[in-house]
């Protein structure tokens, strides 16, 4: 009786290749050894530790970037920066401290204008929540934020270092906590955290693999073979990536490297276990060499098809519009290709070299042909006696998966670069302090540029527009013309301003409303309006700008949602404000995140529209069964959507609610879909082989469960454990990725492939029988 998980006999080509490899395994291994020594002599390439910036992700010509540049040109003074220093004392800052911080920023900016003393910071722009004058203030006189606007030519690290120096100077005054924060420090901190944890990640994933394979096979040699395959794959991959990086002139972003490494480790382990499981099953009835020949001949087509479909899957990322997603593709293709080559050209030789010692220290139980038989007969028994119970379970799992998949859009996608960081990091502490004192979006507000004419005489209309925008859910406050008066009213000084106005007011025909120089004494309103002129309204009156502070951290998915709502409601708000003929443009990081995420959504649809039919076609060619191929792909799509839906549901109900990190849907969809198809191939081949032997209905399901089930289960657990190690990187985005990938892999390999798929295949058998 053939108890191999791959009951189908190998293809002719695979038998030929297997024989050549097994016969010549020693020279092949020597060649591998020589190549490895050469690679080690060259050295292990290292990659940069600089994370991605939002600007790197944004599509070329994004209107938000153009508007921001335009605003700097029109108003000269940028009102948002991506690097800040925050000082907060919850008990209240001393007046002298606030004055010192404001004066210090003013002096710093003046010095920065001096061409002889130009630093990396062009402007230090401070604001404080003194008397809650500033919009979106939540506390009174507890916090000063200094926006550090960098020079365009200064690098990110230089700007971060300059912010550090600035923070050190502020720390000279011991009042409250001073922290360096903002998008740029957050991006660099993420990159450093990832680089610092890369080796831990590799060691942890290897340790997990060794443990699981050792326990599963009750062998020391199997984990050693797997570790050898992983080591060779990792080393080879690093060199391939370095070469590709040099040839294509593309840097490998630090966010990409851990994912690529884990994918390579997971994939090569899976493929190695395909071969080792097959050998283990064959060895119970045959000698070691014949078992190796049979195992390799049978697994080569499976590994080749699996690597091909996975390769197609990750290559589909090239269809994306977003450069960042496209940048993922070459690295992932390299990872899958290298893993496939190692699994097909190295692992069989190692198995041949080990011979009977593959299961060492355990001996192969040659007279144990019932191992698979017991599983087969017990599965058959359960299916026949408890058929309806199994059906209930299958239907319940399907209902659960469909329900979870329904929540796939529940959480918005976000960049989350600040909220991603550990709460005790300096950047996160600074952001928290700023959010406590103002609103969470204060560090990177959304900018609205109003284009029109005569806006310098339209203060009332701009104030009405400010009020309209403040009413939009998710907006914490708006800085615009009229904000100073509103701030004074908030501070309880509204009556005093009105009295002052009454006392100073002169007839309108005697005092031009513009309050230009030389017009005599000005009213309090004109004084207040004059404050905004030049800074918030251009002197020619053609442009005005409003700074919108959102109540969520600017890079999160929730803030991006608010930016979308803002964009949609602006035309009506402008109309209600009575600003005839005015047009409003949106800039800022939240709007940019919304654009990037929307672009990724479109990319995902485009990728799936190509990937799903392509995988269906490849599977149909490989399995020669359209219905089974469709079933494999459909279940993969369902599992992937369910994993993402469950993550989204968790985030919005019990999680932080910042949304899923922007790359998660695309990366998880492509990887889970491809990996699911891999397992589907294994189960599909087992089903075809069982059908070729005449099995139908329950017998077919039992055969599939007994032959492919254990292998799928172990590779699934191994893959899930490998992805779970990504959670060791203390960034929320990596934890989200780890949970989605591990959960998806476990559901796919423990429920969908060994249970749902065989049961659905039996339905087909029944229909045919009927």
């Amino acid at each position: 009786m053939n108890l191999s998980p791959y009951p189908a006999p190998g293809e002719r080509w695979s038998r030929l290749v297997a024989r050549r490899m097994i016969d010549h395994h020693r020279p092949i291994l020597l060649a591998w050894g020589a190549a490895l020594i050469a690679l080690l002599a060259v050295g292990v390439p290292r990659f940069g530790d600089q994370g991605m910036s939002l600007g790197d992700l944004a599509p070329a010509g994004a209107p938000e970037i153009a508007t921001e540049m335009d605003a700097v040109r029109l108003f000269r003074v940028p009102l948002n920066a991506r690097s800040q220093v925050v000082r907060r004392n919850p008990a209240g800052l001393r007046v002298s401290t606030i004055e010192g911080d404001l004066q210090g920023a003013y002096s710093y900016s003046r010095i920065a204008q001096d061409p002889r003393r130009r630093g990396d910071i062009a402007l230090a722009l401070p604001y404080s929540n003194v008397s809650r004058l500033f919009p979106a203030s939540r506390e009174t006189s507890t916090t000063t934020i200094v926006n550090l606007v960098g020079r365009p030519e200064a690098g990110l690290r230089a700007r971060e270092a300059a912010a550090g120096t600035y923070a050190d100077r502020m720390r000279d005054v011991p009042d409250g906590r001073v922290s360096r924060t903002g998008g740029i420090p957050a991006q660099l901190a993420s990159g450093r955290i990832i680089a610092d944890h890369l080796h831990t990640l590799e060691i942890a994933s290897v340790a997990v693999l060794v443990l699981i394979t050792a326990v599963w096979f009750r062998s020391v040699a199997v984990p050693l073979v797997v570790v050898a395959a992983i080591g060779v794959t990792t080393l080879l991959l690093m060199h391939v990536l370095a070469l590709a990086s040099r040839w294509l002139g593309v840097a490998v972003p630090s966010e990409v490297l851990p994912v690529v490494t884990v994918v390579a480790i997971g994939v090569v382990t899976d493929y190695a276990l395909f071969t080792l499981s097959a050998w283990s099953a064959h060895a119970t009835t045959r000698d070691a060499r014949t078992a190796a020949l049979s195992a390799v001949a049978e697994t080569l087509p499976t590994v080749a098809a699996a690597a091909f479909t996975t390769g197609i899957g990750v290559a589909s990322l090239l269809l994306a519009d977003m450069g960042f997603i496209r940048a993922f593709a070459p690295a992932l293709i390299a990872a899958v290709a290298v893993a496939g080559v190692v699994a097909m050209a190295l692992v069989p030789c190692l198995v041949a070299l080990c011979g009977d010692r593959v299961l060492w220290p355990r001996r192969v139980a040659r007279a144990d042909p019932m191992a698979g038989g017991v599983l087969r007969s017990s599965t058959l028994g359960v299916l026949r006696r408890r058929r309806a119970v199994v059906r209930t379970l299958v239907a319940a799992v399907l209902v659960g998966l469909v329900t979870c998949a329904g929540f796939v859009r529940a959480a918005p996608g976000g960049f989350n670069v600040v909220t991603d960081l550990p709460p005790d990091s300096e950047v996160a502490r600074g952001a928290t302090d700023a959010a406590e004192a103002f609103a969470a979006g204060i560090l990177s507000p959304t900018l609205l540029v109003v284009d029109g004419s005569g806006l310098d005489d339209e203060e009332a209309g701009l104030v009405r527009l400010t009020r309209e925008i403040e009413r939009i859910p998710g907006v914490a406050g708006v800085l615009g013309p009229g904000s100073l008066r509103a701030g004074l009213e908030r501070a309880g000084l509204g009556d005093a301003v009105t009295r002052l106005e009454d006392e100073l007011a002169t007839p309108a025909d005697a005092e031009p409303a513009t309050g230009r120089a030389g017009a005599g004494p000005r009213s309090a309103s004109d004084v207040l309006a004059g404050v905004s002129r030049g800074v918030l309204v251009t002197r020619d009156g053609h442009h005005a700008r409003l700074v919108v502070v959102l109540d969520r951290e600017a890079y999160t998915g929730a803030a991006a949602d608010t930016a979308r709502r803002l964009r949609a409601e602006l035309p009506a708000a402008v109309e209600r404000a009575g600003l005839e003929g005015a047009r409003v443009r949106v800039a800022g990081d939240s709007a940019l995140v919304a654009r990037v995420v929307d672009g990724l959504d479109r990319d995902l649809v485009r990728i799936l529209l190509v990937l799903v039919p392509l995988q269906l076609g490849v599977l149909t060619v490989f399995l020669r069964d359209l219905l089974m191929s469709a079933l494999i792909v459909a279940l993969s799509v369902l599992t992937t959507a369910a994993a993402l839906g469950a993550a989204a549901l968790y985030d919005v109900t019990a999680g932080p609610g910042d949304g899923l990190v922007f790359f998660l849907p695309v990366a998880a969809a492509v990887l889970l879909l491809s990996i699911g198809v891999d397992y589907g191939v294994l189960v599909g081949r087992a089903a075809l082989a069982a059908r070729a032997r005449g099995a139908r209905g329950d017998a077919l399901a039992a055969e599939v469960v007994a032959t492919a089930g254990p292998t799928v289960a172990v590779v699934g657990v191994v893959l899930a454990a490998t992805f779970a190690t990504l959670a060791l990187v203390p960034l929320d985005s990596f934890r989200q990725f780890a949970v989605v990938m591990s959960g998806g892999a476990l559901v796919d390999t423990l429920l969908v492939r060994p249970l749902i798929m065989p049961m659905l295949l039996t339905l087909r058998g029944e229909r045919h029988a009927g």
Partner: protein
Amino acid sequence: MRDFGIALLASLGVVAQLAVVGLLIAALAAAVSPAARRAIAPAAATLGEWGAWMAAGVAAVAVAGSLWFSNDAGFIPCHLCWLQREVMYPLAFLLVAVAIVRRWWLTLAAAVLPLIGAGISARHVWVEAHPDDESAACRVGVPCSVKWIDEFGYITIPVLAGTAFVLVALLLVASGLVQRRQGAPR
């Protein structure tokens, strides 16, 4: 009119909670006492026959109630309200199909959907009681901790939704088990 509608829906919620308690007591009694099993046999038979339809009816009332709350009473649905709607609305249609097909294993399997919905409702009730635990997504727009109604000292909208989900799940489980015992088609 608005007060009457709120009172009516809250009262229906209390009736549904009594039905949940009744079902649980009956199930417990049937599990431990043959006499009780005999006594409730006619009711159980009815439940087997009509349980899925009853569940569909409960879901339909819940859907109508939620639409009335948002469209007529003017209560803006929060983030968690929308998630519960995403479960309840398809459920109402799915249960009609389940009732028509009348396979006991399908009736049982369909109970997964209301159980997921009940989990979301439970979280929503928790957020109402502990606004500090509100996730950030809940703080955008209408906060999830806002209690639009508070009848009888405990009936809020998520309590009503949770009650409907639990009642639907119990009806489906009970109906499925009775159908199985009655030898309904597989």
